[in-house]
């Protein structure tokens, strides 16, 4: 019974069709991009640059999770793949002393391979079981990172991770991240809007039907999952270069939950929603900083309220407002 309800929720996803959302989304995207590019030149405070950088990295991670969600699977362990990527790249850089580009590649390939190894098994699972198994897998990854001290430095992590040469200053690094993340987000958007995206949508809406019409359902899911893990790994690499420090605690269930919450707040419907969710989650804690514990209480209440009132997330709020405005204008 609950599976039907769950499927109904997921089924509403992308009902508008990717095309309908495209034009206003693209316009908005261009405006945001322009604003971000101008940000360091206009604002004298490097703090905003720092927040923006962090936000971009989170956006990439959340978007990678969004890919998996669009195939109908909600993962609660995605930060684990970020961690695998971060460690792979860092170790390549600091231990093997290989060039930065190779390290970044390792940061994509390692989690992708891991995704390829577990994907065919875990993607057979439905709804809640997938959530639980990914949660466990995230914990297993974290435990591995903590216990394999000789390789990973254990719970004390690895510090003094150098940023790519030439991008050491905060502003330069910001532009690097802006460029990389924008490219990748556009790529993700295009995948979602293409043939593959439509295949994903049909798989999510009705797996049986998709299977009957000859789609290689499991293969599609695994392919998307592998890509998503790789992209999450890249987000991890960027984070390693940003914070100059990684430890297992940076990639634990707390972070996986954050990524999931971002997607849920964004409505699980579209990439745009996910990006709105990212902004919300990056900005809110900064606004509430003076209320230390109260901040978390408010955050919890906000989650409950958004889930109750706007099951479609903040993106639905946007759609509703647009609807209201449209009705006013046509009176």
């Amino acid at each position: 019974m609950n599976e039907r309800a769950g499927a109904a929720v997921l089924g509403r996803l992308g009902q508008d069709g990717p095309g309908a959302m495209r034009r206003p989304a693209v316009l908005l995207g261009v405006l945001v991009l322009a604003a971000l590019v101008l940000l360091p030149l206009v604002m004298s405070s490097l703090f905003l640059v720092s927040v923006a950088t962090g936000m971009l990295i989170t956006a990439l991670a959340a978007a990678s999770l969004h890919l998996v969600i669009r195939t109908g699977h909600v993962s609660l362990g995605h930060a684990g793949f970020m961690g695998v990527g971060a460690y792979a790249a860092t170790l390549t850089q600091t231990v093997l002393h290989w060039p930065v580009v190779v390290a970044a590649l390792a940061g994509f390939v390692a989690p992708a391979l891991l995704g390829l190894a577990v994907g065919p098994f875990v993607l057979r699972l439905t709804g809640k079981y997938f959530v639980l198994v990914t949660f466990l897998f995230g914990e297993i990854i974290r435990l591995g990172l903590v216990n394999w001290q000789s390789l990973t430095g254990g719970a004390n992590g690895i510090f003094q991770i150098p940023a790519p040469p030439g991008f050491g200053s905060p502003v330069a690094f910001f532009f690097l991240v802006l460029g990389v993340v924008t490219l990748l987000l556009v790529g993700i958007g295009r995948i979602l809007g293409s043939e593959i995206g439509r295949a994903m949508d049909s798989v999510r809406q009705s797996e049986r039907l998709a299977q009957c019409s000859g789609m290689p359902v499991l293969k599609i899911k695994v392919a998307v999952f592998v890509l998503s893990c790789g992209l999450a790994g890249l987000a991890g690499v960027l984070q390693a270069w940003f914070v100059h420090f990684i430890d297992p605690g940076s990639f634990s269930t707390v972070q996986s939950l954050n990524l999931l919450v971002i997607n849920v707040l964004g409505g699980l419907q579209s990439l745009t929603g996910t990006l709105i969710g990212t902004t919300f989650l990056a900005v809110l804690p900064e606004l509430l900083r003076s209320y230390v514990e109260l901040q978390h209480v408010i955050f919890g209440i906000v989650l409950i309220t958004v889930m109750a009132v706007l099951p479609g997330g903040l993106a639905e709020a946007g759609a509703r407002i647009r609807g209201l405005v449209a009705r006013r204008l046509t009176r």
Partner: protein
Amino acid sequence: MQVTSWAVASALVVASAFTSVAARADEDLKLGVIAALSGGGTAWGLGLQRGVQIALDEVNASGGLKVGGKTYKLGLVAYDDQYNAAQAKTAVDRLVQQDGIKFIMGPIGSPGALSSLSVTQPAKVLQFVDGYAPGILKNDFNAAYIFRVDNSNLEFSERIVTWIKQAMPEVRKVGMIVPNDATGQAAVPTLTAAYKKQGLDVWVDFYERGNKEFTPVLLRMMAQNVDLFDLNSASPGDAGLMVKQVRQIGFKGKVLQAGGAGVDEIVAIAGPLANGFIKYDVVDEADARTKPLVDAYARKFSGPMNGMVPIYYNATQILLEAMRRADSLDTTKVRDEVEKLQGWNTQLYGPLRWGGQVSYGNNHQIMLPFYMKQVDGKSIRVLSTLQPVD
């Protein structure tokens, strides 16, 4: 007419004297605080914040901080890092870039301390941290603007072990059950090496933080026939449980903690089973020097005073004294004065000692005298006062 104008003139002089005093008194100087203020590490973070607050309040009560011809009213800005590296970086970015803070107390623990380094050191922001990771002092910046204000296990381990060898010569084998976190993983190699150097056998097992039922692991340890159970870096809550459970399953050997801070919580949890328990501590509440702090804390805050409070009370006093001596708020000058405060008589710990040249290549590690305390029935008595080794 003359009398009136005289009167008016004198009134004006007196009035202007008053107003200019008032105007001069209150320029604000804010110190930054970064620590875990929510989630699991809150007790330590709050301890840090409160220790700093008490020190600042005392100075404000006596008229403020007088530096460079101005008087400053002291305050603090506290940000939560949730014991997470990325959060610590955001917090320190905000303090340094947005709020323009030049002096930061905290973070505590490797994730926060190590990630904040990359921001504070290039910006010449002076930092006072706690946490076991050697990288806090041994790094590419050569800890230029960072001081560790608490003993790390590198400072006290060897000394405690030599004391154990002296005080308990019958001990042959030591068992350690350690949390599998940053502190635990940093502490174990040092302590193990120290024990082995004294000819003692060592057995170690790790547990996951959050686990509270230690009986199976304790059973495993007892099968190893250890004479001494060292609780190492376990948190007070876990330590209390381990003391209680190890006695419940009939362990007859010695129980000791070479690390951690604060005996009261352990005694509260273990009750009468804590009898005979020996512990490292950085503060002696019975000591006359500590009493004013204990009283001040009890007046303002609820809950027990944990080990972070005196540590950061002390650290704040060191910083403020260095500012006075530098007669400036320039961080490089203040940093130099902090180093030169070697030998200055601190309120809580006596003469200040900076050390660490051998272990870290610089002298930014505080060397605090510490106590080995024993629980004796209802009271806790100090067995010995020890000095850390460089």
